[in-house]
């Protein structure tokens, strides 16, 4: 047994897109223990319900994180709509699902580029981010924003999307699918990718369940907790949804799940566009939230199950707004995956788990 030493990893590190600190206790280049530390970017966004009324808080919710921006505004609006018993028009529900799935594509492509960059696979990184630009163009065409979309409001959407624009989105998604599938094939069959990821950071099915893991991290260990299966909100309108699962539980399995989810999300977005019918996209929601009204909502964000809870107090301001993000559920799984790994594999394991610290800290 070698001498034990502790290596501080992060919060500033080339492979970490967001600030998380890890104390890695190592013996002979093997990680024997990892202790995570967050708290560098806590902004107290849940406390802001005191100064922003429930209509304006949508704009705070979507600033929790730049990558999951649309998802947070959607989850928040659905929670308030549930509390106030609001029926959102069908067209708005379908557009919400479409944009949420395109957000997932954007998030997964961002992650794929960063992973390729960590490998030193520079050309793949550039190709993937080139494709991601097309997705951001879709956001700009449909909402006017590329990162913060500001299209959700309590009761539906702020504005409608014209049929012309939707047909352009459809053709962009079809061409994106073709281009992406070529890149996906290259990435998944590449021998250097496999040599770095196969059998690394393995989490078994039982471990994944016990550690309460969520999202693609859990699905790579064959745990099906995809919230989209439950048909909450607009997801009940999907004709058929089968979650993508893997049995390996290693870094390669996590990469494969996310890569396949991009194609799945393109298909869902196309299904929503093709089934859109005309109609209004919002209903007026006015008045205070009843005192004591409360609601729980779940949403499948790109990183997994996100939990929303809100409590009213009879005013325009919420008594409590809670967002439990997927990355905070996956921290225990991340620690377990790091235990016993080689020091050189730490970056690969963290990247394939894809923690979002902005979401976690709020």
């Amino acid at each position: 047994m070698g001498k034990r030493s502790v290596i501080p990893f992060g919060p500033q590190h080339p492979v970490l897109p967001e600030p998380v600190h890890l104390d890695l206790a190592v013996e002979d280049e093997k990680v024997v223990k990892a202790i995570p530390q967050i708290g560098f970017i806590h902004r107290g966004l849940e406390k802001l319900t005191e100064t922003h009324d429930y209509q304006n808080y949508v704009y705070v919710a979507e600033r929790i994180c730049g990558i999951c921006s649309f998802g947070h505004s959607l989850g928040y609006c659905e929670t308030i709509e549930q509390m106030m018993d609001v029926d959102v028009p069908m067209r708005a529900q379908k557009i919400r699902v479409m944009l949420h799935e395109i957000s997932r594509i954007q998030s997964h492509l961002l992650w794929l580029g960063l992973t390729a960059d960590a490998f030193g696979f520079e050309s793949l990184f550039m190709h993937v981010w080139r494709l991601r630009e097309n997705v951001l163009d879709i956001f700009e065409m449909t909402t006017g924003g590329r990162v913060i979309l500001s299209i959700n409001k309590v009761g539906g959407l702020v504005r409608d999307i014209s049929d012309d624009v939707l047909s352009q989105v459809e053709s962009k998604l079809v061409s994106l699918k073709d281009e992406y599938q070529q890149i996906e094939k290259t990435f998944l069959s590449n021998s250097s990718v496999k040599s770095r990821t196969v059998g690394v950071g393995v989490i078994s099915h039982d471990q994944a369940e016990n550690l309460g893991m969520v999202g693609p991290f859990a699905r790579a260990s064959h745990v099906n907790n995809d919230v989209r299966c439950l048909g909450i909100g607009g997801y009940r309108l999907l004709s058929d949804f089968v979650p993508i699962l893997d049995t390996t539980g290693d870094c390669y399995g996590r990469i494969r799940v996310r890569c396949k989810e991009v194609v799945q999300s393109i298909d869902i977005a196309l299904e929503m566009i093709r089934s859109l019918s005309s109609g209004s996209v919002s209903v007026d929601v006015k008045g205070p939230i009843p005192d004591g009204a409360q609601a729980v909502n779940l949403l499948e964000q790109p990183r997994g199950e996100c939990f929303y809870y809100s409590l009213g107090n009879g005013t325009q301001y919420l008594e409590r707004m809670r967002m439990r993000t997927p990355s905070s559920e996956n921290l225990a799984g991340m620690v377990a995956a790091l235990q016993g790994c080689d020091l050189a594999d730490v970056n690969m394991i963290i990247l394939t788990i894809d923690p979002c610290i902005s979401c976690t800290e709020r």
Partner: protein
Amino acid sequence: MTVKQNYHSIDVSQILTTAQKEKDEGRRCIQICCTTTDDGIDVMYSYRDFNGFSGVENFVVHGLSKGDEIPSIQEFFPSQFPFENEAHDLFGINVTNMKLDFEGNFYKLGEDAPMTVISTEQLKRKERAKKIAAAMKAKQQKQNAQQSPVAKKETSSPTQQSPGTNNKSSSEKKGE
């Protein structure tokens, strides 16, 4: 479709037994949420199925005070360590027997238990809302009280009824 959800009140002494029972029944703890209310701090534990979906079961411990102790459920659900440390740092709840305890350094905060501080504006808003709700209730009661003698009067003298309000009696009359 919305999420099926149930809320149950529990005591501090039932936190561990509830966690054990929920785990045995195939549910996992998905979050712990503290809320500062007029009666103190409420701590809500939410559980969801491992497989399938029968809804979210929420167990709420009501009326805790800053500095009160609750037991850690990390023994059953290790993924809950961020929320237990958060309960300590943001609400001042002492969570005992935590496996991963950051001892108040989970978040870097400028003041202790910031989520328990209620601004004067928020207090004023809540007071005003309560007054409005009380006034509305009183108005409603007054209206009900005014309507009930009229209703009694109406039943006693059918000739004063407006047309169509009592079709049965009018048809009976026609029949007669």
